[in-house]
């Protein structure tokens, strides 16, 4: 009985997901597509929870439904046309369809066999056997910050690179105009709660779902909300501090890694006794960096006055080209 209910639930989730994906990709109106895409992010969060991946559900709810939604909605304005129509010729369309269908069949066959033939041995057993010396009891955090810490370090580098590209390319987007006082009123008490919740996610990541990524995304969501309700707020930020925050995650990560290299002869090989504290320190720094990076990514470019104090001539040239662009 209960299996049948689960199965019905699964089928509904999957059908809804596919329908949302299909309409996202085939609707003609960009605004509509973005809205549907956000809805798909929310649904994915539910699906991660269903598939017993609560860490992902948290991250997806904040990033997939929140931050990338804000990012895409504010990006719509930058584009000339609100329509999304494909201009491919019928022949081309047919070829694309055939190619996609063939690929789908091939992939389905591969996955089918992969699942059928798997002997049930999983990496999770290896993780579980080493979990006690990792310094944390949440296996996902153990993988991210201990067993595969290299990946996470490099991922932070990828995020930093992406944000640097954003900063190099553009000035911050123009502000919104009229803001509802009701939104401002809510922001005043909601942002502190979001910040504390972010801290909680960071803390709880050691032994339950949560961690630096979820916490960083939550903090970024708080800053984006603040920016939406008080558009001039970023002018109050200290831009040197902002630069430091942007890189502090990688900085601390590398410093800890080098320190461990002096002690244990291997980069990022923590001593088991300290592992818990070291992971918490790295995660705190990573949370701040991820939050700063995602906020700057949302702003879509350099905040006002980013160049101030650095090479006068370079900043002058920059503003010159920008003036040229406006004409």
């Amino acid at each position, binding site marked *: 009985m209960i299996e049948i209910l689960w199965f019905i639930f699964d089928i509904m989730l*999957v059908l809804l997901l596919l329908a949302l994906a299909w309409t996202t990709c085939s609707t003609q109106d960009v605004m509509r597509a973005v809205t549907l895409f956000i809805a798909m992010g929310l649904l994915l969060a539910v699906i991660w929870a269903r598939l017993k991946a609560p860490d992902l559900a948290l991250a997806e709810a904040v990033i*997939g439904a929140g931050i990338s939604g804000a990012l895409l909605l504010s990006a719509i304005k930058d584009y000339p046309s609100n329509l999304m129509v494909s201009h491919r010729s019928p022949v081309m369309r047919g070829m694309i369809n055939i190619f996609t269908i063939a690929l789908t069949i091939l992939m389905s066959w591969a996955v089918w066999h992969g699942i059928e033939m798997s002997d049930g041995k999983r990496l999770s057993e290896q993780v579980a056997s080493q979990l006690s010396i990792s310094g944390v009891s949440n296996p996902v955090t153990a993988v991210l910050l201990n067993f595969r810490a290299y990946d996470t370090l490099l991922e932070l580098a990828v995020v930093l690179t992406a944000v640097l590209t954003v900063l190099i390319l553009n000035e911050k987007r123009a502000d919104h105009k009229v803001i509802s006082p009701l939104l401002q009123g809510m922001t005043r008490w909601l942002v502190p709660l979001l910040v504390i919740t972010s801290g909680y996610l960071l803390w709880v990541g050691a032994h339950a779902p949560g961690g630096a990524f979820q916490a960083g995304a939550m903090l970024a969501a708080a800053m984006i909300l603040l920016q939406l309700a008080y558009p001039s707020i970023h002018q109050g930020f200290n831009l040197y501090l902002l630069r430091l925050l942007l890189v502090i995650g990688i900085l601390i990560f590398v410093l800890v890694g080098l320190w461990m290299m002096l002690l244990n002869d291997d980069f990022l090989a923590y001593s088991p006794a300290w592992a818990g504290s070291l992971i918490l320190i790295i995660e705190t720094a990573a949370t701040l960096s991820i939050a700063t990076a995602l906020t700057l990514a949302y702003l879509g470019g350099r905040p006002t006055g980013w160049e101030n104090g650095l090479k006068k001539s370079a900043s002058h040239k920059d503003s010159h080209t920008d003036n040229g662009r406006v004409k």
Partner: protein
Amino acid sequence: MISEQLLYSLAGIGLFAIGLRATLLHHMLLPRLLALNVCGAGVFLIFIAIAYAGVENMADPVPQALVLTGIVVAVSATAMALALGRRLEALKDE
């Protein structure tokens, strides 16, 4: 357990195919980006479907960690692509 793994990984493949088709069909940046993100979501779904280990157990932590980093990288990459597109539009106007 296998039936859920199959169902969700097939859904992941479906998502990937829908996204891929739209990526190939569209010319404009924003629709393409959305489609690519749908594609990515499909890949994540396949990972987690295979990581599924029954209602009582947590999913395999290694694919979870990979997908977690994947989600964050995807949103940064989207932001970067949007910034590139915005700069392109600005250059076109010039």
